[in-house]
């Protein structure tokens, strides 16, 4: 029996077989032999998560658009499928032509979340490719990765041959061209990797040597060949109007997490929240034009038949012509019965009118993210939201017929005290009062306020990259306190177990040695760690012990300001001195203004023509 037949058999036994069968509308199945370069795009999580991811759809379209390259998708199978595949010797197969991963010239992972790393090892191994880069031979594919987590590539340095840092649109094709040359010119693997290292924004970890201090801190990361540059600067797509954006995207048969058109209206954010890694990594802010967006919306709607369009960005409320964009989209889409989901923070009076006209507003719950409970704490994290702002919007919403509000907070933020935790409860109580302040006959019945508190994870390239994470014990104590103070009528409190956030913190700021822990944990059976039913914290702790490493060294230790950080050789465009300045200001609860109100000198100002808000003379 060949693996295809075995795979068919497996499909009859597993839950959710459609996540493995492909054949969706707008997927591309090219003739294998007609393409000169075969790219296996791997999303290291389940189909439902992966098919909700915009970046994959962009790169899938971009690679398939070129006549010489083809791109097929791979997802992480669930445990039931994986068990059968392993028992039956079925390799990881692509969604399109059901080819094993090992048949592809390039395997590309997108790194969205640290806790998907074990899935990467599982997918590589199930695909019939050696897990360790150094074990791969001349006939093995080149394994690459990109995405936000690639900015600290070190924990994956043993397994990924080359990382793409920053925006993927341009570097993707450049990288594929080099790998095509490997095949067509008979380059050795080593030669190919050195050529890749010459590309701007490409980091080849095997071309760098890492040394450590006696206490385990990184002493140096230095190139070991001339092709590798001492620092690797991220790629930036300067003009979103001219860069590639797909005009048709795959439409899954089954419901996935985000089952709608995602229209990326801008990239980057000017707000400068100090905990937010995306806010730093995706700088500078770049907007797509109204014309481009309305045109894309039209084409995507025709190609997919979707009933809903959501505007995607880090802070859609900041898009310059948001009201005009929404009005235009609503007008164009009305006859097509397409609803536009709005960033909830901007349901201001102007919009309210057009909303009521078109009756397109569904009174689902409104979401706000004050992130912290007191003004002091919000100043520390530079979250430019005041209590008055929030309560005013909540008031509007309750008057407008909403009855459900979700509030998102973090605990464990630097300098946090019990007063800040109590502030969360105070804010929740004030929201409840706003509801009861609306006359009974004019408010929607059944108030629901959901307070979700997640655990702060310090991330590289943020002003908090030096900060310790709360220990697991402290988090439990704080959660216990929150449970007490949030025992308020009408309020539901959602909290998180700290174990996963602790592991996330270890990987987020991990060095190359974390790769050993990852490998050990994977060998011991850790996979699908992002899912509570499969996450095995104890096994991870055993893996640390067996590798003779201390997780607290990564998660709970405050970094010295002069310490070499494991990701210092990656240049995000944001200068370390800016991050340091921000870290110091946060200590004094001093805020920094939105870049749109004037350049704060984050470092991008030195990079000519990249940031539209940069002031060349900025500090």
């Amino acid at each position, binding site marked *: 029996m060949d693996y295809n037949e075995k795979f068919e058999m497996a499909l009859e036994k597993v839950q959710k077989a*459609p996540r493995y069968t492909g*054949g*969706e*509308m707008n997927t591309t199945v090219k003739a294998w032999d007609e393409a000169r370069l075969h790219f296996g795009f791997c999303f290291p999580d389940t189909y439902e998560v992966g098919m909700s991811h915009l970046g994959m759809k962009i790169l899938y379209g971009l690679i398939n658009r070129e006549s010489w390259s083809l791109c097929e998708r791979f997802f992480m199978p669930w445990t039931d499928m994986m068990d059968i595949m392993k028992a039956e010797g079925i390799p990881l197969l692509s969604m399109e032509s059901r080819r094993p991963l090992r048949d592809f010239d390039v395997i590309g992972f997108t790194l969205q979340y640290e806790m998907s790393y074990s899935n990467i090892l599982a997918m590589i191994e199930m695909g019939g490719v050696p897990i360790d880069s150094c074990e791969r031979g001349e006939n093995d594919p080149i394994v690459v990765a990109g995405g936000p987590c690639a900015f600290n590539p070190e924990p994956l340095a043993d397994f990924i041959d080359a990382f793409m840092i920053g925006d993927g649109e341009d570097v993707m094709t450049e990288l594929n061209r080099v790998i095509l040359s490997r095949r067509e010119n008979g380059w050795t693997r080593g030669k190919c990797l050195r050529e890749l290292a010459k590309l701007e924004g490409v980091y080849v970890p095997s071309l760098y040597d890492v040394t450590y201090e006696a206490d385990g801190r990184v002493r140096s990361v230095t190139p070991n060949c001339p092709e590798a540059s001492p620092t690797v600067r991220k790629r930036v797509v300067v003009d979103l109007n001219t860069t590639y954006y797909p005009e048709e995207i795959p439409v899954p048969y*089954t419901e996935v997490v985000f089952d709608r058109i995602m229209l990326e209206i801008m990239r980057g954010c000017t707000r400068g929240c100090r905990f937010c890694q995306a806010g730093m990594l995706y700088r500078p802010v770049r907007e797509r034009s109204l014309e481009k967006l309305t045109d894309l919306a039209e084409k995507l709607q*025709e190609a997919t*038949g*979707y009933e809903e369009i959501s505007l995607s960005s880090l802070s859609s409320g900041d898009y310059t012509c948001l009201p005009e964009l929404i009005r235009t989209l609503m007008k164009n889409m009305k006859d097509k*019965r397409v609803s536009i989901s709005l960033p909830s923070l901007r349901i201001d009076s102007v919009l309210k009118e057009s909303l009521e006209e078109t009756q397109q507003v569904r009174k689902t719950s409104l979401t706000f993210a004050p992130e912290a409970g007191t003004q002091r704490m919000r100043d520390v994290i530079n979250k430019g939201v005041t209590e008055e702002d929030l309560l005013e919007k909540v008031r509007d919403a309750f008057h407008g017929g909403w009855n459900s509000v979700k509030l998102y907070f973090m605990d464990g933020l630097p300098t946090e005290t019990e007063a800040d935790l109590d502030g969360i409860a105070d804010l929740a109580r004030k929201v409840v009062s706003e509801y009861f302040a609306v006359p009974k006959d004019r408010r929607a019945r059944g108030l629901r306020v959901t307070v979700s508190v997640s655990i702060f994870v310090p991330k590289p390239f943020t002003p908090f990259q030096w900060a310790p994470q709360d220990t697991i014990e402290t988090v439990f104590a704080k959660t216990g306190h929150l449970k007490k103070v949030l025992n308020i009528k009408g309020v539901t409190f959602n909290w998180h177990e700290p174990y996963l956030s602790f592991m996330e913190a270890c990987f987020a700021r991990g060095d190359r040695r974390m790769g050993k822990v990852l490998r050990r944990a994977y060998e011991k059976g850790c996979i699908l760690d992002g899912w509570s039913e499969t996450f095995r914290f104890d096994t991870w702790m055993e893996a640390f012990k067996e590798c003779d490493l201390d997780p607290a060294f990564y998660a709970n230790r405050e970094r010295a300001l002069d310490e070499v950080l494991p990701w210092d050789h990656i240049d995000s465009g944001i200068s370390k001195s800016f991050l340091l300045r921000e870290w110091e200001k946060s200590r004094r609860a001093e805020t920094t203004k939105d870049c749109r109100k004037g350049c704060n000198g984050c470092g991008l100002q030195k990079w000519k023509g990249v940031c539209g808000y940069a002031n060349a003379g900025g500090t």
Partner: protein
Amino acid sequence: MRILAVFEKGERIRHIGHLDIQRSVQRGLRRSGLPVAYSQGFNPHILITFAQALSTGACGKREIMDVTMAEEVSAEEFVARMNRAMPPEMQVREARAVDAKHPSLMGMVRAADYDLTIRDAEIGARLAEAIPAMMAKETIPALRKTKTKLTEVDIKPLILSIRGEANHVFATLVLTERESCKPQMLLEALKQAAGIEGEVRMLVTRERLLGEDASGVLAPLETL
């Protein structure tokens, strides 16, 4: 006016459930640009019905949808535009324009033709050979599974015709809201007749849906 269209649910997508098939057809209609009619109200949806849900895991050669159009559309145009808008595994085979008063197909289904392809050729042959023995019995008890309970039913009167050929069992089985014989029930009965135990893998293909014509004779639903 309405369009009755015959479409396929291909083997590759046989594990897709009925609700997902419905949604996929609706999105296909939206992609096609055909002037479909929408329901009124806050959350408008396309006016469409499906003659009969097809189980998860089964393919369908000639499934039937009944779409209400807001404007006149020819059957040819419907087929051409839908086939550009639908994935290869869900192509529209043919269509027929009917007026708004044409009876709903939903209540007219009486039976369906099935092809049960037994994956193991040798077991398939044994099952096919066991057909006469099974049909010779006075009653053919089978278990019907519902969400809450198992009930025993006699499927003999529900098997309208049956024949074997190599590893295929071709059968016409009653399919109404009141009573029906599922392919899996038939398989279990055949296994018993052939003395075969354990799991038998089969591919179920619903070949066509049948209704009764004016004289009470079974005929393909889409022709009625």
